């Protein structure tokens, strides 16, 4: 079992990695899965696909938007500072105090700029029916995947979908690459 602080850091990184790149970072996959063989097999499929998306669809505009989202989470919630800091040496109490604050402000920022909703609205661990013609991007089947939809199963994760993006207008020029400006205090 890995420590709380690392789990937290992983969770954040996975979230953004999935949101903007559609992949889970390699090192996290490696740490979380026990067997090396599995790790190799997953990226071998995922990696070329991700690159393809990046090459074909990820226009400069959407890359800027990704930076912008990150900049907003940094501005309002100091998220980048947090992820970039080596937190391994801090006691859980110290980390917890910071995380509570970061959690509140990042959550508020997320609510402000992105409307998230679950893909399936049923309770988790309750039975659901996967309809005919479902979108495999939206619903992932796990376990004994066989037969034809409609299929009954247990909802293990409700999923998340972005219902609306309400990002402010883009900064101009060099501002687009800025996640957080350097601060200089004039005495």
């Amino acid at each position: 079992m890995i420590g709380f602080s690392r789990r937290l850091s992983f969770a954040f990184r996975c979230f953004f990695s999935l949101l903007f790149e559609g992949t889970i970072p390699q090192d996290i996959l490696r740490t979380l899965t026990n067997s090396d063989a599995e790790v190799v097999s997953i990226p071998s499929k995922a990696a070329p696909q991700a690159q393809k998306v990046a090459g074909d669809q990820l226009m400069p505009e959407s890359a800027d938007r990704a930076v912008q989202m990150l900049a907003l989470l940094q501005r309002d919630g100091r998220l980048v500072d947090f992820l970039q800091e080596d937190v391994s040496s801090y006691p859980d109490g110290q980390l917890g105090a910071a995380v509570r604050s970061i959690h509140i402000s990042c959550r508020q920022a997320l609510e402000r700029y992105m409307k998230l909703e679950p893909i399936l609205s049923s309770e988790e661990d309750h039975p659901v029916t996967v309809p005919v013609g479902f979108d495999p991007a939206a619903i992932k089947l796990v376990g004994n995947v066989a037969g034809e939809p409609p299929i009954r199963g247990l909802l293990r994760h409700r999923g998340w979908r972005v219902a609306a993006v309400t990002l402010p207008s883009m900064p101009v020029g060099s501002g687009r690459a800025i996640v957080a400006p350097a601060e200089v205090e004039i005495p």
Partner: protein
Amino acid sequence: MGHKTWPRRQQLDSEFIVGIDLGTTNSALAYCDSAAALENARIEVATIPQVVNPNEVADRTLLPSFLYIPGDMDFPKGSLSLPWEAEPKFVIGELARKRGAESPGRLVASAKSWLSYAGANRTAPILPWQAPEEVSKLSPVEVSSQYLQYLRTVWDAHHAADGKGYALAEQDVFLTVPASFDEEARELTRRSAEQAGLQRVTLLEEPQAAFYAWLESQGDTWRKRVKVGDLVLVCDVGGGTTDFSLIAVSEENGDLSLKRVAVGEHILLGGDNMDLALARLLQQKLEVEGRHIDTYQLQGLWHQCRSAKEYLFEHAKSQKQDVTLLGKGRKLVGGTIKTELVREELNRILVEGFFPKVASGEMPARQRRIGFQELGLPYAADAAVTKHLARFLSQQVQNSPESANIRRGRNGLACPTHVLFNGGVMKAGMLRERLVEVLNSWLTEEGFEALGPQNVLDAPDLEHAVARGAAYYGRARRGQGVRIRSGASRTYYIGIESAMPAVPGMEAPLKALCVVAFGMEEGTEALIPDREFGLVVGEPAEFRFLSSTIRKQDRVGDLMENWGSEIEELSPLEVTLALEGQQGTVLPVRLESRVTEIGTLELWCASRDGANRWKLELNIREKSGQ
């Protein structure tokens, strides 16, 4: 003192009725469409788009009354653009407040308090106070005007795009001012509205607006909540100021009628003081632990204290709330400082510090008079709101002509039968309860029953109540709704120098001739009897102008001597008699005073036959020796 008809510009009713709360810390705008059947016309609160972060415009229902004067080094180019203006000269609203915390030298805050502070030159560019040299400053009037102009632009973008439709300049606007504003401050407010291009402005006192908002929320049932002889205390504690008024319920033609019978002084004390007091406490706590808190972190602490306070007020069972200051720079977790706000501290600082249990005879500490007092706003020297309330209620015993309408106790204290709260601070149930508790201890002492929950009138939506109430008032003026009768909130005098032989180094003693009696009602006028002044046609004449909040017994025509500190001098009034072919002749004139329907005071010179009238104008300028 009979009623005469005065020449009045006939105007058609405007399409919209607009209420504007030009607050010390937040402004708001509410409106209703008068085309809809008036009784059903709903009052709506307007959304005010504003820059909330560089490159980010968002809708808010409040416009923070902050103006930031950006320099070249402040914001990236183009990041302040508004839908209607690519490069605004000033930042107004939320971003101004945020940025001002980082760079206070370019921020104008509390412009409204400056507007009412006679110690400053209010039409001269003095704000931001103590700004660096290269910042081009604005006058308090200009800053207020900027806020109004901003609201006007927002309105016009929505209601009068492309110059068609219902421009705000053409709507009836009801603009609120603190009840404690004197004639000068009201005149300056009117001028700032004029500068902003608003042409149909009526002033209204804020506590009255709050009461109108309550009336609106009650519909017709308000008549069941109050009865003849009741006295409502409006207690308005906002972000920066505290304002009290008394409204009496009486009977007229068999129907209930309302009259504003007393207003308090202008007290610069509010929620910001309270949050800062909490931040200072936590700062001390942290410093005892050996942590140093710098100015920047104190800002953060201030903000966090506000949230923690609100949380504890809302969650009566929680005993404490964490306050976390994240580390600066890249050492975020490593530099995190954590402390907590404990309920006991909240009680001690806010409830006991700002709302202590005091006897009705305990007056607030007087303003400090230090030789080299730093010139700035005259913040209240005593933070106890309850002591200011004690002074307000005991002042009302003194000689008021309204005494018949004021319920008084055996020691003479004005004793309200109801309380209406307004202002952000009074959102906290604990503070409301404490204030009622203190008031009740006084009422019992004065021989009255304590107030119960039915005596506390609850206005919904405290943040927008004043703007809503102002719009309601506008509707009431068109005959749809109840109006509060109100009159001059002070007594006004003209200074008359005694005819005495001049003594070197001594000013001739000044006498004060009462020209407006306290309580003189809107829409009435008075002729100052038995006194004529000889003025030279074509030459400016100056009258010294004085006012008193204390001498309520003086009647029009009374001449005062030796008033001690009870009467204060305002800016002088000026008039130049223009009369064809009479240049240089001395013309005997009489003085007439009016309190207008739009809430202003006017003094006129009238020729003996009444055929010619000249209006006296306040010449507001810096007073020497202040």
